[in-house]
């Protein structure tokens, strides 16, 4: 038996007083997120104080016509880790992908969360099918259109997570068989205008940073397609490390070329970076990479209608439509 096995429970309990294992993670996250939402890192404790209210703010996370890639992206978050997010920062009161309850117990959890007198924030991942009055997309016998209107209608804030929720996404690409529309378009009659966190998937920091902004500083400033300027204020091209090759006119002519191997600009191979507003080059994915670094041209996945407007991919924009 190792020596630590003999440590008494009492001693450990004393060590835990005043905090828990994730305290350090939590404070680190607060400092990082303070920076992400445009404050100095020294405001970390201020963010922490705002988040450490007696009750964790309630979040209801709905899934529409989507692929769950956005939820998976949130699982990849490190600031904070997702366990810290759902145990210490927010209360994830409904999310079909991870929730323990199923069937009517899940539906009761939703109704309970919606009856919370302190209110809740609503996130919607996925587009909303409207064909045949919405019958092509239902949850538990209710159309998504009706259910999401009910949930979002009472929310303190609505976030459209991912390009499908923001702009319709893949299922809205021509010929849009299910007549899928964005959250903003579907819920406009209710006067709901969501914050769009686009991307396929979005970088998790853009979602979590927006949630924290809402909780601490209120509504972030949005661009003309509903995205927080904090994260979507410049193009991928603006911040691209390969920009120096673009400026020098150094373009890789093919994927098998020596120039592609040496990391030259991918513009002639169809990079949509100049037309795409997102923070991929600086935020990075999975803390280690992003498509252009890995030699893959940007496909413009955070732009409205990119599946039709920016396709065909991987070829020079001047050849588009050929």
């Amino acid at each position, binding site marked *: 038996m*190792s020596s*630590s*096995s003999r440590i008494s429970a009492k001693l450990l309990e004393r060590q835990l007083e005043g905090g*828990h*294992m994730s305290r350090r993670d939590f404070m680190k996250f607060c400092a990082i997120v303070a920076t992400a939402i445009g404050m100095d890192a020294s405001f970390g404790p201020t963010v922490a104080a705002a988040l450490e209210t007696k*009750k964790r703010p309630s979040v209801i996370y709905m899934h529409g016509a989507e*692929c*769950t*890639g956005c939820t*998976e*992206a949130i*699982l990849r978050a490190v600031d904070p*880790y997702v*366990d810290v997010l*759902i*145990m210490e920062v927010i*209360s994830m009161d409904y*999310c*079909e992908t*991870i*929730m*323990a*309850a199923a*069937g*009517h*117990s*899940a*539906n*009761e959890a939703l109704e309970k*969360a919606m009856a919370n007198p302190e209110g809740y924030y609503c996130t919607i991942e996925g587009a909303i099918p409207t064909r045949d009055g919405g*019958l*092509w*997309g*239902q*949850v*538990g*016998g209710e159309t998504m259109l009706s259910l999401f209107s009910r949930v979002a209608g009472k929310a303190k804030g609505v976030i459209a997570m991912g390009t499908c929720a923001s702009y319709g996404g893949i299922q809205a*690409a021509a010929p849009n*068989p*299910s007549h*899928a529309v964005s959250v903003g378009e579907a819920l406009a009659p209710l006067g709901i205008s969501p914050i769009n966190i686009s991307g*396929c*998937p979005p970088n998790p920091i853009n979602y979590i940073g927006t949630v924290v902004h809402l909780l601490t500083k209120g509504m972030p400033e949005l661009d003309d397609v509903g995205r927080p300027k904090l994260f979507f204020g410049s193009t991928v091209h603006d911040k691209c490390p390969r920009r120096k090759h673009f400026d020098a006119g150094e373009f890789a002519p*093919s*994927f*098998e070329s020596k120039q*592609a191997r040496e*990391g030259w600009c991918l513009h002639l191979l169809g990079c949509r970076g100049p037309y795409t507003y997102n923070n991929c080059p600086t935020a990075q*994915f*999975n803390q280690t*990479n*992003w*498509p252009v*670094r*890995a*030699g*893959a041209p940007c496909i413009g996945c955070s732009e409205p209608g990119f*599946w039709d407007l920016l*396709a065909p*991919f991987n070829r020079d924009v001047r050849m588009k439509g050929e």
Partner: protein
Amino acid sequence: MADKNYTGHITVDPLTRIEGHLKIDVEVKNGVIANAWSSTQLFRGLELIVLGRPPEDVHNYVQRACGVCTTSHALVSIRAVEDAMKFKAPPAAELVRLLILSTLDVHDHLVHFYHLHALDFFDMASAIKADPVAAAKQAAQVSGREVQPGDYYMVQARLKKFVDSGQLGWLTNAFFLGGHPSYRLTPEENLILASNYLEGLRVQLKLARAMAIFSGKNPHAQTMRVGGVTCYESLRPERLAEFRALYEECRTFINHNYVGDLTILGRRYPEAASYGRTSNFLDFSDFYDPETGKNPFIRGGIMWKRDLKHTEEFDPAQLQEHVTRGWYKDSPPKHPYEGVTDPAYSGYDPNGKYSWAKAPRYKGEPMETGPLARRALAYARGEKETVERLNAWLSACNLKPENLFSTMGRTASRMVEAVVLMNRIEGWLNDLADRAKHPDVELNKPWKMPDKAKGVGYCAVTRGGLSHWIRIEGGKTANYQMVVPSTWNLGPRCAAGKLSPVEESLVGVPVADPDRPVEILRTVHSFDPCIACAVHVINAGKEKSFKVL
């Protein structure tokens, strides 16, 4: 109130902790399921959206079928197009693809077990009552990895603070809260699982990070393309070292914690190793030698009637898709090259059409696909590592080989597959590192799109055999059909009225508490449903209840 002799109907909708949306209907007689209907309610129409687009672009679109098995749809699409072009990518590119696919598979198995399935077996709240010293001792015994009781105290303190807050978040209304007759782990075992659930959340993102070194990002890889892969930068020694460090850290968790937890479950839930059976099995070969294109590491094939003594080779000509019980215009069963996707929603009718899924059949029979199919084939063929690992698990749990064909056997097969694949990754990584030393290592080759051709891509992905079928005309996509694992496993009945694998597996499953039917979740989750394009289309408004008792 728990009624273990219940007779009547149970509907679980939404069936949560899956990708996409699924409705399960069962008829129960004296506490045992007598009939079942699986309604996978999916229609986003990706097969229609890609028509007319350049075949080399299609992988971008179909990858968005699913953000969980994400990259597998991209890879299988690239394989279909390269098959149509009679093109073979350079060996180093094939190796990068193998590394992407294998890390995806292991990652997906890990997240499925811990974060989508394990709450069917362990009680997070009960972990607070455990003796951490006893739990650490038991964890070390089953996992072969030393655990500090202090770590368990920390987990307990955190769980206690969470539960005491009164805000149960994603655990609200969990079936185990307040006790459930079908949850049988001790508090110490619950603590071991709870701790691994939380640690697993941190491990999975490292495995995804390892994959992103080659894929640019995860989910939704962007480096794979028709012709090869784009990621020259990933071949630098420091990038390969970064991958290796992440890989080794995750391998320890897979080889110890994941293995140990399946021993705990197998011992406590022997009845789950006798129910949940299906009859026939199919999967595809994959992970071919990147140089020769031969000798697949995963060998596909066919097994009939759970016969561990005989396996057959897969014959693509025997594949057909039925639409009789799906929301499509009626047509005779068709081979995927001739497949038609003509949606026509007509409401939920268990005696007629009741699902958006088509029903794939092989020689007219329903076939289970996925980790159990692949491990059963490997076991029957005497593949050493699979035989040893499965026998070790069976003997630790006092079970027999026939118990593999069950809910618990399916879940254990997934664990064994994660271990076997994880251990194989190192060899592929070493091979790539050797090739990367050559400054001219090729990752792409030029190609020419044919004017008219057809091709198929097969992939042994996380949830089973995946195939995409393309017909090219005028250099554009003229027909595209995706035959996905979850339509094999979770589709509806076929034209002959034969039950799909999940429907067959539910028959005979006992339900201890019809109000909290955790045994249904256990069995359905054991297939790791990934309904992808699912958009819960059900009951054109006439039936309001989520559950009819």
